């Protein structure tokens, strides 16, 4: 796992979660700026996947390869699903779902780290 990317992803995901939960608390639906934030996090997550593939190609491997791969896939789909739900349901609880998804991403990054080393 590329450490810098992992830290960046976790940081962005937590910031995103705080932002989205603030919006939910103020009862505002998500707008374009939040979607840009989701895009940034998603780009970092993709970079993390590429980094993992490069490391595996160089001969290194996770201690639990199957679990690691599943976590990688889950980390990629969590935010799009959350954003989709939040856009489809423009309510406080719909917005909170995106916040939950961002928290899930942060947790997944931590679990990725655990299953790699």
């Amino acid at each position, binding site marked *: 796992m590329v450490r810098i990317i992992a830290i960046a992803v976790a940081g962005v995901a937590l910031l995103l979660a705080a932002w989205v939960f603030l919006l939910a608390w103020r*009862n*505002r*639906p998500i*707008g*374009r700026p939040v979607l840009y934030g989701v895009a940034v996090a998603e780009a970092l997550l993709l970079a993390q996947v590429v980094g993992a593939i490069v490391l595996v190609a160089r001969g290194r491997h996770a201690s639990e390869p*199957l*679990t690691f791969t*599943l976590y990688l896939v*889950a980390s990629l789909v969590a935010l799009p699903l*959350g954003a*989709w*739900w939040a*856009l*489809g*349901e*423009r*309510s*406080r*609880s*719909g917005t*909170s*779902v995106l916040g*939950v*998804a961002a928290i*899930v991403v942060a*947790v997944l990054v931590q679990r990725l780290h655990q299953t790699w080393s």
Partner: protein
Amino acid sequence: MTGPGPDGLAGRQAAAEAMGAESPAVAVPGARGGHAAAQTVPPVAAQTVPPVQTVPAAQEVPVGQPVPDAEAGPDAGDGKVHGPGRTLVAVYAVFAVAATSRAVVQILTKFGEAPVAYLLSALAGVVYVVATVGLSRPTALGRRLATGACAAELTGVLTVGTLSVADRGMFPDAAVWSGYGEGYFFLPVVLPVLGLWWLRRASRAATRDARGLLGEAPDSSGGTPGS
């Protein structure tokens, strides 16, 4: 979190009017959302396209404005779960996927190491799936399913948690419920309590709504729940 405030009241009335006029599922942006997975129309596009049915202008939700409705209560009468229950469904869905897939991986790859823990994880996964499905249905059956699942979850997490703390050797590898769900930020012990609280609120609201629809006098003995 969201009591039946002015917005909630307006939303409930709007839903009741929609039911009274027997118009099927008026497309109000803020009011839809039963099944996010079934949502195919991007809402951004939906805002630029004029609504098919005539919706009062006050119900359109511009970006950045406070959202009316959809926090009306557990069941606004359109066959969908509303309010904080929706977020709860999402969290339960995450746990259903996480616990089930983790258990499947563990059982497939290293079942011999800790069969009891892995089977318990699988059981927990099934319970989460049942709870997710039950919570997403605002029917009496859905509530009963979810209540059973949440009660089973609470029993499981307390039993397994206590056993795992009392005797570490019993669970060589962590399961979802071991250590009261410490591997999952103790959410496994918090979630069923939240779920049961929400279900209680939902069933009370359903009873109240049913009385309202039948035209009976509101229940004056019990006071207003959730306030």
